[in-house]
């Protein structure tokens, strides 16, 4: 239960960190909050030869509301800090609502949003939330910078679009349109456990109460965060009545691909997806009004 030996580097700048990763490639892992990597190292299922510790690199942890209502979050922002940030409670309340369910406060005190997203566990909440919000991720390397939409970042279980020399540096979350309501809902057997199913629901209404946009994304529902575009599209143009919601939930059930776990069979996860999506949509609709 002790990790294998490694060379530890704790650079003071992002540039140094990226240079180290470029030099060592796949032999090196970035160390952010360590709440996923260190357990894996303690079990020795991960044995990186080199750790590039990001905790001393300046300027990676900011949380900044932009003038246009969007939010820019540095990858090293602690999950607890994001949860407490005003933007998480006001402009993007789904961030605080979902983070509240992520593991436990102790894990959130040290764990980072960027680290959690880079780990890309299909059972994690925040990847699904980012996909639902249509967030963009800024990926940096010694070669430069690119940004991609969250849905293109998650490729499979624990697999992302990061090149061997790249790091997720920042997350840009667009402003929600006026009269948008959001909800994160999940079911886990114990508080803090990985969810058997989790759903992010976003609903935007016009002044007449008619839905102009909707977004749904689930965790624990497939190899990556699973969206439900047909379910979401079915709500546009409707007043998001209980019947509309029930129809959307039915569609969502067909759009997810849960593989089951020790806690829940695929059929049960699929059932939960419909139940939770319906509840989350109802809540999102109330909040949009």
């Amino acid at each position: 239960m002790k990790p294998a030996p490694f060379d530890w580097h704790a650079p003071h700048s992002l540039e140094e960190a990226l240079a180290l990763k470029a030099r060592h490639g796949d032999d090196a892992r970035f160390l952010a909050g360590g709440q996923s990597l260190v357990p894996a190292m303690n079990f020795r299922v991960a044995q990186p030869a080199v750790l590039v510790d990001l905790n001393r690199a300046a300027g990676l942890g900011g949380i900044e509301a932009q003038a246009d209502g969007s939010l820019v979050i540095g990858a090293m922002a602690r999950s607890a800090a994001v949860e407490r940030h005003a933007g998480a409670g006001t402009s993007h309340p789904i961030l605080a609502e979902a983070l509240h369910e992520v593991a436990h406060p102790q894990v959130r005190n040290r764990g980072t949003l960027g680290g959690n997203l880079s780990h890309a566990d299909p059972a994690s909440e925040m990847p699904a939330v980012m996909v639902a919000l249509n967030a963009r991720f800024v990926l940096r390397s010694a070669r430069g910078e690119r940004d991609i939409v969250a849905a293109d970042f998650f490729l499979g279980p624990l697999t992302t679009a990061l090149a061997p020399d790249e790091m997720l540096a920042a997350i840009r979350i667009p402003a929600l349109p006026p009269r948008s309501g959001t909800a994160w809902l999940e079911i886990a057997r114990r508080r803090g456990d990985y969810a058997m199913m989790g759903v992010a629901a976003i609903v935007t209404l016009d002044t007449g109460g008619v839905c102009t946009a909707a977004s749904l994304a689930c965790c624990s529902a497939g190899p990556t965060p699973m969206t439900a575009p047909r379910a979401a599209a079915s709500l546009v143009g409707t007043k998001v009545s209980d019947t509309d919601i029930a129809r959307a939930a039915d569609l969502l059930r067909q759009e997810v691909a849960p593989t089951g776990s020790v806690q829940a069979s695929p059929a049960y996860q699929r059932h939960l997806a419909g139940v939770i999506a319906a509840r989350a949509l109802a809540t999102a609709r109330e909040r949009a009004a």
Partner: protein
Amino acid sequence: MKRVTLTINGTAVTREVEARLLLSDFIRHEAGLTGTHVGCEHGVCGACTIRLDGAPVRSCLMFAVQAEGHDILTVESLGTPGSLSVLQQAFQDSHGLQCGYCTPGILMTISAFLEENTDPTEDEVRHALSGHLCRCTGYQHIVDAVLLAAKRMRAG
């Protein structure tokens, strides 16, 4: 090997350690403070919880070398056998422990929790405890102890 100086309960401790030495092991074996316990070493049980710059964190998920430049508080900072803190006394009075293995971690989490929330509901206490596993008590007396401590702290 790297020479590091960690500040634990206000005291500087300088040792030469491998980068892979966990903070929990530094606290126990290098600093000799065995109040911090190791239950799972993969971040689920909470027995190793300390306060890093005031925030409760799992010390089994940090390397000792990372903790240089930070303030670490362990259970030894709360009180002594002859002079228990209000929180510790409440645990004794409420039978909030049996084997005591999970207790130090819980005390560190709750000492931070009660600083932020001086009048918690039972639900809030249970939420605050959710990162800790106890195999002995069934948690009820732990919850009672926390509520009793909060009440006594409010009374001054």
